């Protein structure tokens, strides 16, 4: 498995999503949480769904990350992905952060060793200047 090419689309984030990516640019995986009640939410949104507060405190995903589900993509649905297949798209869950989930990739993990629930470690990749993406590998394999 290889990481994805530099020309895979990286769409412009909406205004209230930009801060998530600004944290990524600093290589910190941060999720939006409510400054009033603590509820973690993703993707970013203007109001806390639990208490309607607009006050935000960003919390770092520095603890547990577990594989929630995954797929091996064989058919490239964008020209940039033709040289990349097969690759693994994954959903990673963060139990310490209200089980918020992040859609990402598994890198350096052979498909026959992937198991739902496996512990994962964060790796940062910068496919092109200014685009810093959080990806994951098997826990203990991060370098």
């Amino acid at each position, binding site marked *: 498995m290889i990481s994805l090419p530099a020309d895979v689309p990286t769409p*412009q984030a909406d205004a209230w999503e930009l801060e998530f990516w600004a944290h990524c640019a600093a290589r910190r995986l941060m999720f939006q949480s409510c400054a009033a009640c603590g509820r973690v939410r993703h993707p970013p949104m203007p109001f806390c769904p639990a208490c309607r507060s607009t006050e935000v405190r960003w919390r770092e995903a520095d603890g547990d990350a577990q594989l929630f589900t995954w797929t091996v993509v064989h058919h490239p649905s964008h020209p940039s*992905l033709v040289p990349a297949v097969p690759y693994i798209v994954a959903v990673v869950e963060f139990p310490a952060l209200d089980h918020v989930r992040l859609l990402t990739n598994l890198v350096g993990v052979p498909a026959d060793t992937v198991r739902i629930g496996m512990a994962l470690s964060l790796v940062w990749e910068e496919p092109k200047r200014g685009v810093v993406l959080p990806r994951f590998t098997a826990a203990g394999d991060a370098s």
Partner: protein
Amino acid sequence: MKGSQPCIVGIGQTRYTRWGGITDATELQLAGEAILNAAADAGVDPRKIDGFASFGDDRNEPALLAASLGVDEVRLSTMLWGGGGGGSCGAVGLAAMAVETGQADFAVAFRSLAQGQTGRFGQYDPNWRHASFIHPFGAIAAPQLLALAVRRHMHDHGTTQEQLGHFALTCRAHAQRNPAAVMQGRALTMADYLASRPISDPLKLLDCCLESDGACAVLVTRWERARDLRRPAVPILSSAHGARGDWSSGPLGSHNQPADAYATTGARTLARDLYARAGILPSDLDVAQIYDNFTGMAMMAMEDFGLCDPGGSGPFVESGAAQWPHGALPVNTHGGCLSEAYIHGLNHVLEGVRQMRGDSTCQVAGAGLCLVTGGPGPSPISALILGRS
């Protein structure tokens, strides 16, 4: 029936082809052709059509359709939110609401596709909801995003690859009797299914719906106008569109749909309300047309709408329960999006009407109640309960 009861009185379609197969007519022309066929089926003068409803970011504006079809007056011009096929039944529901409240007399729900001319549905779209959180990771189109939910369903419930295959085979078998089906004449075996190429595992090519050109239209009016028309009126016993409030972009976006409904279509509460308004139970159904963008997603919808237990769709389809003519509850008797055509699920509504009229090519004997559902994955999804007059 109350005079205000909304009924489907006409259905119309064009030819169905593989996507890009229709080059001699525009989408607007195909929409008009389907609408005129629906009016002719009902025996309604096209000038009397005064309502237009569609879904999924339809490109064919009612103002242009109305002018070209020469209708007298437009009283309803509406579309359901959501970019996918979730709104197929919901568009019919909007038409039903308009005629029931007297805002329109003859409202038509339509869908038209000529994708060689306009671009394929569901391809790379930088305006996709939450695109910045999915596209950089190579999750660009529906198969990659929804395969994640299907994999989790297999993990949670033990659903097998072969069980997904049984759903595909069921649709293909039904399509063999349907002359309009793109896949008529192309019978399928489990070996064919298992040998089909992987798209985004566990989804294989034969787990994915067709991509089609063609158009469908459904004409709706009140019972007081419906009862004297050419064909038997098919009452819309209830309609619903929506989803849980916390569904957000769901499995077609960031995958933060609620944990207790992750590997579902988010429609359990919608289904409960749909049946309650119709005054029936899922066990009363005779036949169902389930929007099948992908095998595994349709199977989750079957669970949410109570055709089987939660998590039980795999054994249900494997047992043959969804097969016509001997299954307890035949599903997608026209062949579905997998094997008839992918007119974004409005073709499922047409098949529901045929079943209630008694003239399906896989007719369920004495069928009197049909469930039709719209696209699983997004919010809103939608559904109808059709009956007999």
